C-alpha cells in the first residue's frame, strides 16, 4: 500500500542575509560554537525578522467551560447572567466581553493598553494524554505517564536542545515554576530525552540571575575587564569539563550516552553565560534586580505549604515580566512556566483571599472540585444542566490566569518583541471535578510572524465532551483531538519538519499537525 502523501509546510529557507553570511565565513565556520549567535546578529542587523520564540504556560485545575467556550447557536440554551450559553459566536466573529468571560483580558484595552483579540486563537476539544493532576507532565510531551514519567522529551526541550533552536541564545531555555521545585509530574512541564524532568527555578532572584547575570554596560571599563577575566576562567572550566564528559561518553553504551548528551547540552548553556552579554534583541535594557524587600531571600519561603502561597501572585507577575524581557533581549527563545493555585488555606491569621476575589482559600476542594457542569447521556442528550453557582468561582481564577497572559502580551508588545512570539496556554485538565484530561482549554496567542491564523476560535468537530459517560478521550474515534497534533503544528511552525510527536494508543493520535491552525 502506498504511503499516504503527507503535506508539510516547506522548511523556511535561509534568508538572503543568512546565505550571504554563510558565504562570507565559509561552511567550515558552521561548526564553531558561537556560529548561530553570530549568524543571528548578522541577520537581524540586515533586517530579518527575529527567530520565533515559544512560551508555554500551564495553569492548574482546568476551566469553567461556561465562561470560556464559544457561545454558538448550537450550544444548549442554558441561562446564565441574564444571557444564555447559546449565542451567535462563530469562528471569526465572537464575543469575549460578556460578563465574567474569562477571556476578557484579551479584549480590554483599558487595562492592557490594547485589545489582543486578533492575536489569540482558542481551540476547544483537544485532549491531554493523561488525566488528573499529574497530567501537567503530558502537556508538552504528548505522552501518557508510567510511574509518573512521560516516555519522551517535552516539545520545548526537543526544539531548544535536541534540534538546537536554542543554540543561538545565551540560555537555550528557561524553566520556571511558582512555588514547587520538586520534579513531580503534576508540576513539571519540561522533560529531557527519555522523560527526565528538567530542574525548575522558583526563586525570582535565581531566575533573574539565570537570565541577566554577566551583563556589564559597555562604558564600564573595570567591569569589562573583570568580565573578560571571568569569561576566560569560565571558558577554561567549560573546555575541560566538556573534554571530560566526552572522554567518559566514549566509554559508555548508547543508552548511557544520553546522560552525557544532556550534560554536554547543559554545558553549552553555561558556556554562553560566560561570554560577554551582547544585546541582540530590538529592545534590551536589563531590568533592575529584585531585592529582599520584593521577595523573601530564603527560597524555602517561596515554597508551597511553607508560606509561599502569599508570594504566588507577585512571583507569577515577576516571571511573566522576566520572560518578556528575556525574549526581548533574545537571551532565550524557549520558556515554560507552571502556575500554581491561588493561596491555599492561608496560615492562621492571614486574609483568606489575598487577591480579593471572594474565593474560599481552599481552592482545590472548594472550587475546583465543586465545579458541576452539564452532563450528557450516552445517547448524547442533555441530561443535567449542572450547578451554575459553581461556575463563576472557577472562572474567576481562569480570568486571573488570562490576565497574566494578557500582561505578557502587553509587555512583549511594548518591547517590540511580540511579533515573533508564540504563547501556548493550557491546563492539565478540562473538567477539574472529573479530573479529566479531555477537552483541555487551549489558548494560543502570538505575533504576526507566527504562521497561525489568529483572531479565531476553533471547535474540533469530533470532541470528547466530559462528563459524558460514554466518552473516553483515548478512544480511536477521538484520535484527531489528541493535543499531539498541536505539538506537531508548533514544531512545524518553528521550521522543524516532524510529522509526529509523543506517544499514544496508535499513530492516529500522534501523527499529523492540527488542522485549521494555519
Amino acid at each position, binding site marked *: 500500500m502506498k504511503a499516504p502523501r503527507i503535506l508539510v509546510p516547506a522548511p523556511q529557507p535561509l534568508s538572503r542575509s543568512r546565505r550571504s553570511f554563510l558565504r562570507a565565513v565559509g561552511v567550515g565556520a558552521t561548526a564553531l560554537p558561537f556560529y548561530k549567535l553570530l549568524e543571528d546578529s548578522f541577520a537581524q542587523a540586515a533586517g530579518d525578522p527575529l527567530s520565533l520564540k515559544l512560551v508555554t504556560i500551564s495553569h492548574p485545575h482546568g476551566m469553567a467551560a461556561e465562561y470560556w467556550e464559544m457561545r454558538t447557536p448550537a450550544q444548549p440554551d442554558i441561562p446564565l447572567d441574564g444571557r444564555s450559553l447559546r449565542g451567535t459566536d462563530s469562528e471569526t466573529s465572537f464575543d469575549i466581553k460578556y460578563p465574567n468571560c474569562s477571556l476578557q483580558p484579551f479584549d480590554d484595552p483599558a487595562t492592557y493598553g490594547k485589545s489582543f483579540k486578533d492575536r489569540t486563537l482558542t481551540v476547544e476539544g483537544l485532549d491531554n494524554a493523561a488525566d488528573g493532576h499529574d497530567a501537567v507532565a503530558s502537556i508538552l510531551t504528548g505522552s501518557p505517564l508510567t510511574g509518573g514519567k512521560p516516555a519522551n522529551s517535552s516539545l520545548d526541550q526537543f526544539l531548544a536542545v535536541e534540534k538546537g533552536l536554542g543554540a543561538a541564545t545565551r540560555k537555550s531555555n528557561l524553566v520556571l515554576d511558582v512555588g514547587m521545585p520538586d520534579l513531580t509530574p503534576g508540576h513539571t512541564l519540561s522533560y529531557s530525552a527519555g522523560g527526565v524532568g528538567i530542574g525548575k527555578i522558583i526563586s525570582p532572584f535565581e531566575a533573574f540571575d539565570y537570565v541577566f547575570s554577566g551583563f556589564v554596560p559597555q562604558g564600564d571599563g573595570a567591569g569589562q575587564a573583570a568580565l573578560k577575566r571571568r569569561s576566560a576562567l569560565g571558558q577554561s572550566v567549560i573546555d*575541560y569539563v566538556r573534554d571530560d564528559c566526552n572522554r567518559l561518553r566514549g566509554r559508555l553504551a548508547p543508552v548511557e550516552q544520553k546522560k552525557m548528551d544532556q550534560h554536554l547540552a547543559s554545558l553549552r548553556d553555561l558556556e554562553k553565560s560566560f561570554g560577554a552579554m551582547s544585546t541582540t534583541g530590538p529592545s534590551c535594557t536589563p531590568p533592575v534586580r529584585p531585592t529582599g524587600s520584593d521577595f523573601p531571600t530564603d527560597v524555602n519561603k517561596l515554597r508551597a505549604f511553607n508560606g509561599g502561597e502569599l508570594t504566588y501572585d507577585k512571583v507569577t507577575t515577576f516571571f511573566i515580566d522576566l520572560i518578556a524581557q528575556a525574549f526581548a533581549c533574545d537571551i532565550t527563545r524557549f520558556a515554560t512556566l507552571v502556575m500554581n493555585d491561588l493561596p491555599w488555606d492561608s496560615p492562621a491569621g492571614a486574609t483568606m483571599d489575598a487577591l480579593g476575589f471572594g474565593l474560599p482559600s481552599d481552592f482545590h476542594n472548594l472550587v475546583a472540585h465543586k465545579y458541576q457542569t452539564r452532563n450528557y447521556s450516552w445517547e448524547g442528550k442533555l441530561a443535567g444542566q449542572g450547578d451554575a453557582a459553581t461556575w463563576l468561582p472557577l472562572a474567576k481564577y481562569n480570568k486571573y490566569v488570562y490576565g497574566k497572559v494578557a500582561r505578557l502580551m502587553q509587555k512583549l508588545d511594548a518591547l517590540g518583541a511580540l511579533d515573533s512570539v508564540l504563547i501556548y496556554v493550557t491546563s492539565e485538565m478540562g473538567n477539574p471535578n472529573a479530573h479529566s484530561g479531555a477537552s483541555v482549554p487551549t489558548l494560543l496567542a502570538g505575533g504576526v510572524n507566527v504562521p497561525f491564523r489568529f483572531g479565531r476560535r476553533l471547535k474540533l468537530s469530533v470532541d470528547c465532551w466530559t462528563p459524558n459517560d460514554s466518552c473516553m478521550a483515548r478512544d480511536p474515534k477521538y484520535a484527531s483531538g489528541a493535543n499531539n497534533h498541536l505539538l506537531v503544528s508548533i514544531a512545524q511552525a518553528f521550521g522543524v519538519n516532524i510529522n509526529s510527536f509523543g506517544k499514544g494508543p496508535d499513530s492516529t493520535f500522534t501523527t499529523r499537525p492540527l488542522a485549521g491552525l494555519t
Partner: protein
Amino acid sequence: MMRRSRILVEITGAGFALAVWGGCVGNVGSTSTGAAGAGAGGIVVSGSGGSAGSGAPSGSGGATGAAGSSPTSAYIPARIRRLTNAEYDASVQALLGTGMAPSVQFSFPPDARQGPTNSPAGPAFSVNDAQRVDPVLADKLDTAAQALVTEARASGKLTALAPCANPTSGGEACAKTFVLSFGAKAYRRALTDEEVTGLVSSPTSVYHVGADGYTHDDGIDVLTRVLLQSAAFLYVTELGAPGAAGAFALTAGEIANALAYLLTSGPPDDMLLANAASGLLATPDGREQEARRLLATPAGRARFVRVVREWLGIDDVAYREKAQSVYPAFASVSQSMENESRAFIDEVLNNGTGTLAELLTADWTIADAPLAAIYGVTSAGAGKRTSLASVKRRGILNQGAFLSVFANSNSSHPVFRGVALMRRIACLSTADPGALGIVVSFPAADASKTTRARFDAHTADPGCASCHTTIDAFGFALENFDGMGRMRTTENNLPVDTKVTLSAGTDLDGTYADSTELVAALAGSALVKTCLARQIFRSSAARSDATIESVENAFVEIWKQLPANQQGRLADVLVAYVRSSLFVQRRTP
C-alpha cells in the same frame, strides 16, 4: 486490551447515582500539589505484570541461580550514576572539610527519584541512576564550586592542600602535585595523563589560564573549581576496567566507591581505600566486614535512616500542610513527626533488633512532648523511648508521619494509605486508574458519613471492586487515625469501623479488627519480608524498572538463602546484597 468505560459519578448531598455503564468513583485527594493526582503506576516488580490492576500477589521471581553464579542477564547493566544532592554535599565536605551543604544553600533542583510510587509522596528513592545534569544544575554546580573555592581560600584550606615552596617559578610543578593528590581524591581514582595535561601541563591548561598573568593561587582556585564540576567527580562509574565487556567485575576502586556511597552516601574513607587496594573487597567476607564497619558510622546510620524514610514516603512530612480549619495542630508538630521518624528508625536499627518486625510493631516510639500529647502519652524525654503500651498505636505505620503524608489536607485517605501499604510494604501491584482509562471523580465531603462509608461506593460497584476491595481494606484498617495521625473512635459523631477482611490470595488474607492487628500480620508475613528484600535492592541498585527485574529476582533468590532470623533484619539484607556477585558484577547493556 480490555476497554474500561469510565463515568463521572455525581455526588449530591443525598447520595449518588451511578450512570448506566458503571465505572469507578475515587477520591483522589485534595491537596493542591500536583502529586495529589493518581500517580501513574510504577512498574512494580512483583512477579506479576504491572498493569493488571488486581490485587495480585507478588510472585517469587523468575531468575534462577544460586548466589554467585547468576546468568548474565541477572547482572546490572554497566552504567554511570550522577551523585544525589546529599552525596554531592557529603563529597565536597569530605574533600574540603567545609560545613557547607551546597545543594541546600544553592537550592539544587530536587533529586529525580525512582522506586515504588504513590500519591502524594511520588517515587521513593533519591539514589537513581537516571539522574542527569540539566542546565539549571550545571549553572548551580559552577556557582557552588566557586563559593566552595572562595571559602577554602579564605580559610587557608586550599593553601594547606596545595603547598608550594616556590610559586613563582615552580608553580606548575606544585599544581601537578596538587592535582595528582587532591584530584585523585575528587575523582576517586588515579588521574590519567590526558587529564593531567588538560588540567596542568599544557600551556592552555586550566592551571595556566588561571595563573599566567595572575598568581599561582589563582591557578589552584580555578583547578579546584574545575575538579568539582568534572564528570569524574559528579558521576560514580560502574564500567569495569577499560575494555571490559560481556559480564565483568567492577574494578577494586569502583567497588570501594560503590560500597562507600551505598552505605554512607559519601566517598570512601582511607580504611576503605586501603582495603580496596589490598584486594579485601574482592571477597564477600571482606565486603561484609567493611559494610558493617561503615553501617556503624554516623554517616552510615544517617543514610540508612534516610533510605527507610524514602521507602515509606515520609521524608518530606515537615513540608506538608493541613487545612487550618480541620487540623490546626498539625503545623506545630510536623517537624516533631519528622524528628520522631528519624529517631525511631535509628533506634530500631542501632539499639534495637534492627528488624522489619520491630519497625512495624514496636510498642514504643521516640517523641517530644507536643507529639506525645497528640498520641495521648507522656514523652519519656529527648532520645528516650516513650511507651505506647497504653494506646493502640504500633510501629512506624501508626506514627504521625506516615498517617499524615498519606492523607488529605482535611481528612484521612484510605486509598492513599492502602496503595502505600500495598506498593511499599507488600509489593502488591495495583494499577493507577489513569492507566486503566478510568477517570475518577471527587465525591463531595459528607458530614453525615464516615470516610469509610463514603468510600464504600468502591466495593458496591463491581467495576471498582476488583481493585478497591483490597486497596480500601488496607486503608480502612487505619481509619482509627485521622488525617494527621490522631487516634479517633468516632468521626462525624459516628463510630469508626476499622474491621477489615483481606482476601487477595496472599498470606495477608484474614480478618483484622484494627491497625494493630494488621501491622502484626504485616510483620509476620513472608510476602512483606520478601518485599523488604526488593525495596532494599531497589534503593541499593538505584533502579527499579523492567530493565533490572531479573537482577532483582536473582537477589530475592539469594536473600531466601539467609537464615530466617536474618531475612527480616535490614542490615543483614543489605549485607547480603553487598556480599553477592550482583553487587560487583556488571554486564554490557
